[in-house]
């Protein structure tokens, strides 16, 4: 790999609160969420479905404004989608353009950033290599399997050379084997680039396997139930790491947190 090592961004959530107003009654979704993610750290955010994980993610990406509190990326307040942030969504089939080839899909955000053609091509090619999609440049998303489509989405996120990568249940709709492969791909990406990585998931095993730290959200409105450090060390391994006694222990702890508060 000829990628230059990059440093991740530092993310800080300060009393982040979200209330949806209108449509009858107000809906208080998030209540004073506080969290600091250090540069290069991998943070998983888990919680029962419907807890407001996706809402939190929309706030982070600046797609939805916070009601109160603030989100700081490298000390700068997030009000619109930050330059240094890239996102991978669960619905890969819907987030890729069916009328564009793999190459063009990955290139699109670079085009929007008005990056010169030569550099665009170079970045697209290295992103394709990084996620292992060689030889699929000119195929269309619908000609690829689900796992490969999600690789395209990850490559697209990487091509813009983000300092923070945010993923919303990215592996929820692929088969089990593909899921493990993609998990390891994400770990490799974090290793190669040193980017700060946030993963929203409802899968506790996945949360523990990938992260340095797990943020557990529970309740209505959601608040931080616990921040759990994952001292499992690297490299992680799908067999050994998951068989480690600490893994089961952490998993159990998170499970009880989520169960107990419901």
């Amino acid at each position, binding site marked *: 790999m000829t990628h230059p090592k990059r440093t991740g961004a530092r993310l800080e959530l300060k009393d982040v609160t979200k209330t949806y107003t209108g449509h009858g009654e107000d809906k208080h979704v998030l209540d004073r969420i506080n969290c600091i993610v250090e540069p290069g750290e991998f943070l998983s955010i888990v919680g029962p479905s419907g807890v407001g994980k996706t809402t939190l993610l929309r706030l982070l990406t600046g797609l939805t404004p916070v009601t109160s509190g603030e989100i700081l990326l490298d000390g700068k307040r997030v009000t619109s989608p930050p330059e240094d942030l*890239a996102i991978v969504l669960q*619905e890969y089939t819907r*987030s890729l353009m069916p009328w564009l080839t793999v190459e063009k899909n990955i290139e*699109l955000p670079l085009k*929007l*950033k008005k990056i010169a053609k030569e550099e665009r091509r170079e970045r697209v090619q290295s992103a394709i290599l990084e996620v292992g999609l060689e030889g699929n440049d000119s195929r*269309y998303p619908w000609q690829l399997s689900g796992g490969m489509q999600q690789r395209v989405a990850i490559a697209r996120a990487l091509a*813009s050379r983000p300092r923070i990568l945010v993923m919303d249940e990215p592996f929820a709709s692929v088969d089990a084997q593909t899921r493990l492969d993609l998990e390891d791909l994400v770990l490799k990406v974090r290793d190669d680039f040193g980017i700060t990585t946030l993963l929203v998931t409802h899968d506790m095993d996945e949360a523990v396997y990938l992260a340095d730290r797990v943020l557990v959200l529970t309740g209505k409105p959601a608040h931080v139930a616990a921040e759990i450090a994952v001292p499992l060390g690297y490299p992680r391994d799908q067999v050994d790491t998951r068989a480690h006694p600490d893994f089961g222990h952490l998993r159990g702890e998170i499970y009880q947190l989520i169960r107990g508060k419901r």
Partner: protein
Amino acid sequence: MRFANPKNWLWLVSFGGAILIWQLVSVNLNDRPFPSASKISNALFVMLQTGEFWGDLGVTFLIAMTGLIIGIALAVPLGLLVGLNEFAFRSTKFILDFLKVIPPIVVLPLVLLMFGTTVKFSVTLVVFGVLFSVLVQATYGVRDTDPVLLDTLSAFNASRYARLKYAVLPSALPFIATGTKIATSAAVIVSIVTGLVGSGPGLGHSLSVAQTGGNFPNVYAYVVVLGVVGILVNMLVSAMDRRIIFWRGK
């Protein structure tokens, strides 16, 4: 082997069979409004050698295409605007649905009074027949844009214009193509009806003249021509549709 599969030539058998039945029945009827298939094909053969016929065909084609192009050129931008604006969509929905179902023949007398039996009259009517179906389709196409796609683009800091160009327009395209398909058949039909009912120039008018003159073989010959024109136009539009909207249904 293409001919090994009956699917590929069955249409020819049924088509030939239909002509044969027509021939047998018409010979026995021996009545003027039902000329035999052989008489019709003779009339058609003679007709194809006249400059008048090709002139008519050209005029009809020109009317249909001009009306179609003007109609689409008006409908697509209007449809996109209406689709992009919630207020515009809600306030025009009823009016558009209402106008869409009015057959052009209803407004024919009015347009005839305005322009007389001219090409302008026929084209205007074709535009009327084309406009609303394409407009409504374009509107729905815009509104069908996947919100996930729009969010994705927004997360890349895409401008409003970029979202329009990279998400909304391509999403609306299959709908516009469907509208155009419907509109193309409508354009051909209306271009003929303007001649048939409104005495506008073209094939429709010649058919109507043949009918009043009692020249039945010619009437049927024209019908055959219209059928062929219809099939060719449909094939052309379908082929274009498949080429342009290659991702449809994926």
